[in-house]
């Protein structure tokens, strides 16, 4: 018979292990980032100089008057790959990520300006997604194979199998077109004037938080209104996966021997569920939650396009379409950083949830 046992060893040693583990993972960060940059550069490197030129001449109308070959020379698109990569790397090491043609400003500032918006949207969406996903998943598992279970699963899957843009347009149609509740954009005209005025101090770049910190509850509400549409879209489209994983994890755990043992011992059903079952069901759930949040951070492009919001997703998408490689590289590096840190947190949470997992 198996029993989950408590921490292995005195608290101090365990803590030290954690710190070492974190440090070791962080040491790999530069290597990871380097690998990312190389991978992307290789992909872009397969493109010919004229294809790369598309960044500067991005529509047929701009072919006017363009002396294409001279432009290729000017931007060094004909140089061997190594040299082009070397140039980029040299600049990065000096802290210069290059110029973003899509954002029309240096890459670093373009990313830093847009990231708070994406972060804000992600946070506001992550809460309902994780909450709904896990609680409904547990509910479904507890009512296994009964109507509630089937109903919940179908409800979730229907949302998940619609492409986001379809659902997003529905939301736009009903909640903005008909009801006028959730308008597109970041803020209304009057709210934006306030935010851009000199009295308003930008602390985090996230509109909701800054509005509260500036004591402007009206701006806060306006920002919420504009967030509601995208959050609604993202929630319905994303929570299904989490629901399923939670449900299947719970089901598996509910049948595990030690749960049966606990039940046989006569322990209160609720204790069985909360203390033993949930804890062990949580590892795949943590993985998927982490993946979802990280995915949200870079995958909000469609929602951003439809609701016309600022964000990193649409920035990177536009950069990829136009082959603005400085932006692509910079954006990917940034995202890579987030991912590594995010995965580290998820892995750490494995250890917190199930101390049996030895962090090697």
């Amino acid at each position, binding site marked *: 018979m198996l029993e989950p046992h408590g921490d292995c060893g005195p608290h101090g040693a365990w803590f030290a292990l954690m710190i070492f583990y974190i440090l070791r993972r962080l040491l790999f960060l530069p290597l990871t980032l380097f690998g990312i940059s190389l991978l992307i550069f290789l992909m872009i490197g397969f493109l010919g100089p004229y294809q*790369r030129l598309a960044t500067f001449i991005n529509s047929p109308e701009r072919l006017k008057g363009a002396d294409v070959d001279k432009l290729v020379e*000017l931007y060094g698109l004909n140089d061997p790959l190594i040299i082009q990569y070397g140039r980029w790397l040299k600049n990065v090491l000096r802290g210069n990520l290059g110029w973003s043609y899509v954002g029309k400003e240096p890459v670093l500032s373009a990313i830093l300006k847009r990231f708070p918006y994406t972060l804000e949207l992600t946070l506001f969406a992550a809460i309902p997604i994780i909450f709904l996903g896990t609680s409904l998943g547990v509910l479904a598992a507890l009512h296994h194979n009964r109507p509630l279970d089937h109903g919940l699963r179908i409800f979730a899957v229907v949302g998940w199998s619609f492409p986001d843009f379809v659902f997003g347009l529905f939301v736009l149609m009903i909640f903005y077109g008909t009801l006028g509740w959730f308008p597109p954009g970041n803020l209304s005209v009057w709210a934006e004037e306030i935010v851009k005025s000199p009295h308003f101090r930008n602390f985090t770049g996230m509109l909701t938080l800054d509005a509260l910190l500036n004591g402007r509850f009206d701006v806060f509400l306006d920002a919420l209104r504009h967030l509601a549409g995208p959050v609604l879209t993202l929630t319905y489209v994303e929570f299904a996966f989490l629901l399923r994983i939670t449900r299947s994890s719970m089901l598996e755990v509910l049948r595990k021997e030690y749960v049966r043992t606990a039940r046989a011992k006569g322990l209160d059903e609720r204790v069985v569920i909360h203390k033993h079952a949930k804890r062990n069901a949580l590892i795949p759930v943590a993985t998927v939650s982490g993946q979802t949040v990280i995915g949200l951070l870079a995958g909000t492009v469609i929602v951003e396009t439809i609701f016309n919001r600022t964000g990193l997703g649409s920035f990177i998408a536009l950069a990829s379409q136009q*082959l603005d490689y400085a932006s692509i590289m910079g954006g990917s590096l940034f995202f890579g950083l987030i991912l590594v840190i995010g995965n580290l947190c998820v892995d750490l949470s494995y250890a917190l949830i199930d101390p049996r997992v030895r962090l090697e």
Partner: protein
Amino acid sequence: MKRFLVVLGCVFFALLGVLPVFAEVKNPDTYIYLSIGEPDTLDPHYAYDTASGEVINFVYENLIAYKGESVTEFVPRLATEVPTVENGLVRDGGKTYVFPIRKGVKFHNGNELTPEDVEYSFERGILFDPYAGPMWMLIEALFGYETLEDFVKDKVGIAWSDMVDEEGNLKSEEYRQKLIDFYTTYIDPAVEVEGDSVVFHLSRPFAPFLSILAQNASWSAILDKETCISLGLWDGQADGWWKYHNWKKEKSPLYEKAIGTGPFKLLEWDRTQQKVTLVRNDEYWGEKPKLAKVIIWGVDEWSTRRSMLEAGDADQVATPLQYLDQVKGLPGVVVKEGSRLTITALHFNWTVAKDSKYLGSGKLDGEGIPPDFFSDVHVRKAFSYAFDYDTFIAQVLKGYGHRVPSVIPRGLIGFSENLPMYPFDLEKAKEEFQKAWNGELWEKGFKLTLLYNTGNEARQTACEMLKENIESLNPKFRIEVQGVQWPTYLDAYRQGQLPAFIIGWLADYPDPHNFIFTYYHSNGVYGTTQGEAFRKFAEENLDALIEKAIEETDPAKRQAMYEEIQKIAYENALGMPLYQPEEVYAMRSWVKGWMFNPMRPGEVNYDGVWKEE
């Protein structure tokens, strides 16, 4: 926990219910226009797209402007008179233009406008001449060269890249004096200050010169010399001017700053939201705009633009033709029309690059086409007969467009309803195919690939229509229609790999030369991409005519010359002009004072509109 959330949810929705009542006219003194995309740069000497031009046009001013909706009549703007032969301000048979400069005009930062500012603006632009920029028009008009570097090479005798390196530094001191002399001999005297006027000296008469200067031509905007120098631009000196030539787009401080004399000031260009905000210039010397604020916002998704127009959160939105039915009849929305000076044509590549993958087998064996497929006039004529022009305009453009006999759009000199056009006639197409390549083509058949750039529905449909009609003539004829992303298209186009391409042109200035030169001259932007064989043809048959027509100043004579050029184009089926489109503009009914001008970049005359029920 759950109960708390339910309560929170109810509070949330309750708060939403306390919404502002729908006002009659939303944002009454702010105009909100939703566009596609955003400006490229606000530097007038770099910008060459309509989005940039739209902003530059209302923040900066030019010497003269078009009168109302006309493209042939002018009114003074920063000059006090429009130069004409009659008032003596056009002299030497059209080689000298004199512009008396208005007094009492202030830039947005308070500096006074002086003739030195005008001289500086033009000279800086010419010396700057960035690649892919618009300055070629002024350089061609004043000096007859395509680029500054060509000009320098011709006069100094050495290539630019041999004299100056990428950073703008001289490669050797011996070039310094040569370049200084170049400036003082050629550039400086071309634009001079004489008292209160600025005088332009052209190397030869150039008919459309005034159009190149008129308001809407962002490259002729007037900048403030002091501001520019303080921003680090050319200091106005002969020594060292080469350092300021051809900067990269992002290096120019003017890319996001705009200090002009215009009716609006630039408040902000928020690039994270693709939004430009303008505010009224209360010190404007002329009639002040009625609007206090203008917001030009890039919203790329049509459904979003449309719903904002419906809700009144936008006053006007960019409306692609195919969605017209969605806005016609919307309450509170009106649709207006206008016809720009633009045409779309299908042109042939007479000498396709041998490694092109769009040639099939590359031989006349039924599995491909030889690289010089289109050098046979019968093939070109056959294609010209095989396109159903009228059905295309009726169904794809919904009637918003009309045919043009050649590349000159309606509204310009040289256009004539009487010029011959190819009708849609499959019988004749068949005949021509049978004559092509000594009859071999009809026997063996052919296979080629037509590319279009994804995102452009009209062009895609045109390719598909052509394919259907031609394939119906002979089962051995096969045309594959493929959509590719823009970078791939650009690459193929540039390397001469496309056997044929559909391409449009929007007038830089309202003169036939702008179109004819582009499409038919051996050095034209599109002329160079139609293959070696075409260039030879153009050199022998068209170049001289085209050059004469631009130097002629008598409109009647020019009309005759351009008609002759177009007849040659027709007889040799040099290209297939498909249509001149009309545009539709959807706006709220509370917009008043809206006016159309074909040369205006952007869709709104912000200085003249206002909003009221």
